[in-house]
């Protein structure tokens, strides 16, 4: 957007570049491979927790500095960021998601508010994002979707076999599954090939670049000749003078802090954990920076089917359903029982484990090992649902700078303080009952329900992190204005999910891309 408007742009990325040749004609690299060790065990996409840990604590009560040091909701630190490892489910939010306070009212202990932008205002940017990234989907398939001005750029790819089983079962219990809108080419698009269904999708870079990760837009920008990409370049401070962002301080491996000036604007897009870390390192002092951290509350309902499912083939998730986002009479009754005015779940992904190292490490060793791996109760037969439940914004859930732990450069790391609201737990308990019924309807011989945070870990594990530089129309209750400009530094723009007011029950990627396009257009003077 900015390079197209004639701006010169310099991109600083703290991680490595495994995505695109820095030299013209910027061909796509071949570093992404079908290698479980490399991607899921050995931190190929970074960050390595020994280089850049985070800390976690459930509460600021008492005198607990942290309960855990290491990985906490880590998104890749690499050129392309979270888009590289994601399996590319890119739903839009619904109209209701932007005005929860007006529609449903407040909830005690949470900062539920309306967004300063409506779905109608954002719709053209959603459309632009879907075209720019390349999204495959069926515009008529989801009865709960909000209006849209046109079809998806591509039709959906093939459904996974296991997904067809659970989709049919869901329909039989009254749910409405549909083909997940996916940023993976179902046909050649944007100069990139169609997905080959290789199955190494979630948590892997795409070996053929069929995913519409940021490479789609990045390559176009680089080809203008007005965009410079600097990997291995950690920005440690945005330099602000008299309310104007004048540049950044950055460093590479030698530890020498250098200054790069910015004549027009500085855009921060480090994700909802690294962005507030940088704003705080830069000395910005708005009391809400880092507050309202939201991570989707994940409810897993999994079971084992009798037949082999070959879940290692395909795009990792090919069906989803949205029924649990809607506040119906049952949800209201469940909310009342929990002492809440309302509750909402989130989009449900139909998914299961697919790769053998992950599976093997969970089985016992010994004589039964090989038989267990051949029978494969997990990799070949386990399937079910993951609900990305709406996580209410709470001021006490936050990112701040660790007082005791520093990264390999000596810079304070992000400290995560997080506990779910009773809303998330009540919504999970309510909606998991129907998900369990649907899974048994699909033929599951046994089922199990688990949550994260909760059963799986003390800290959230969802990669959907949001809300730490909230946008709004009032500088006393928000960090950035409706065009994502920091109130006190108008040429400093936050262009990631930090600006989200509420978390909805949908993956944040398409919404953050649409918002970033809108903010960039405003910067460039065309919106």
């Amino acid at each position: 957007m900015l390079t197209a408007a004639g701006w010169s742009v310099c991109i600083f990325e703290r991680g490595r570049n495994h995505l695109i040749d820095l030299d013209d004609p910027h061909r796509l690299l071949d570093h992404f491979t079908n290698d479980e060790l490399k991607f899921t065990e050995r931190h190929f996409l970074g960050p390595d927790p020994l280089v850049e840990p985070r800390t976690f604590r459930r509460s600021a009560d008492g005198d607990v500095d942290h309960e855990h040091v290491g990985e906490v909701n880590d998104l890749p630190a690499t050129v392309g960021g979270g888009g590289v490892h994601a399996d590319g489910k890119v739903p839009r939010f619904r109209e209701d998601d932007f005005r929860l306070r007006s529609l449903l009212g407040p909830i005690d202990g949470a900062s539920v508010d309306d967004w300063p932008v409506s779905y109608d205002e954002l719709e053209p940017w959603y459309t632009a994002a879907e075209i720019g990234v390349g999204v495959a989907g069926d515009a008529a398939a989801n009865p709960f979707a909000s209006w849209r001005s046109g079809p998806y750029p591509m039709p959906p790819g093939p459904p996974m076999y296991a997904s067809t089983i659970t989709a049919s079962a869901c329909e039989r219990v009254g749910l409405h599954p549909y083909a997940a809108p996916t940023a993976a080419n179902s046909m050649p698009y944007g100069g990139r090939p169609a997905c080959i269904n290789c199955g190494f999708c979630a948590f892997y870079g795409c070996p053929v670049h069929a995913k519409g990760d940021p490479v789609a837009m990045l390559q176009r920008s680089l080809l203008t000749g007005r965009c410079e990409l600097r990997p291995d370049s950690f920005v440690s401070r945005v330099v602000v003078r008299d309310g104007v962002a004048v540049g950044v301080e950055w460093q590479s491996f030698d530890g020498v802090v250098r200054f790069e000036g910015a004549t027009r604007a500085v855009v921060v897009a480090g994700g909802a954990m690294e962005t507030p870390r940088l704003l705080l390192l830069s000395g910005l002092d708005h009391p809400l920076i880092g507050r309202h951290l939201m991570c989707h509350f994940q409810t897993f309902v999994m079971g084992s089917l009798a037949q082999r499912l070959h879940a290692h083939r395909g795009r990792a998730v090919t069906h989803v359903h949205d029924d649990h986002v809607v506040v119906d009479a049952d949800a209201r009754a469940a909310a009342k029982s929990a002492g809440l005015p309302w509750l909402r779940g989130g989009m449900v992904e139909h998914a299961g484990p697919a790769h053998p190292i992950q599976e093997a490490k969970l089985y016992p060793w010994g004589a039964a090992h090989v038989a267990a791996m051949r029978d494969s109760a997990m990799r070949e037969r386990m399937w079910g649902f993951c609900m990305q439940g709406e996580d209410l914004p709470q001021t006490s859930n936050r990112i701040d700078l660790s007082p005791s732990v520093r990264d390999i450069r000596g810079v304070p790391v992000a400290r995560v303080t997080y506990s779910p609201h009773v809303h998330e737990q009540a919504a999970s308990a309510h909606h998991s009952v129907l998900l369990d019924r649907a899974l048994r309807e699909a033929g599951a011989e046994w089922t199990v329900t688990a949550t994260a945070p909760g059963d799986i870990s003390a800290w959230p594990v969802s990669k959907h992190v949001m809300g730490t530089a909230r946008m709004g129309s009032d500088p006393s209750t928000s960090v950035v204005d409706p065009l994502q400009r920091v109130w006190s530094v108008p040429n400093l723009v936050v262009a990631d999910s930090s600006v989200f007011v509420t978390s909805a029950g949908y993956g944040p990627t398409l919404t953050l891309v649409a918002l970033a396009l809108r903010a960039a257009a405003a910067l460039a003077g065309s919106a």
Partner: protein
Amino acid sequence: MSLSPLHRSIVTAACGRLIPGSVAAGVVDYIEGLLGAFDVSPPRVWAVTPRGSAFHELSPFEEVAWRRRIGDWQARYDAELPLLGDDFAAASDDEQDARLRAQPALTSLLYEHACEGMYGAPAYGGNRDLVGWRTIGFEGDVAPRGYSDDEVALP
């Protein structure tokens, strides 16, 4: 870094009990390759291709992390393998299993590495002739052919 002949014999016997067939699949070579990752340059950490012999360069920070991680594993093997007994390889199957159960921390480390060597990409020294994947019917790396739409959607 690597395993002494005695420690290699212990690791070999232990892996044979943890995952039957894994020694023939090369898991001991995998573990030695991991401990000796920095014996080659670039180090044996991230394979360029799943079945090749080339590895990616590490950044200076990544090298610090991997030298520390591998150093910790080497120290644990050095300190804990003797707990299984120098005569471990000569002990009976039942005796070996009992000694492994008596050292859960070491056994957990050995098992994790054995799983990686058995079911990881062959570029790292294990899964020889793809026996790990073939044994369990896993098709593994199929790029760039991938799967047809029918292979994805049908039983």
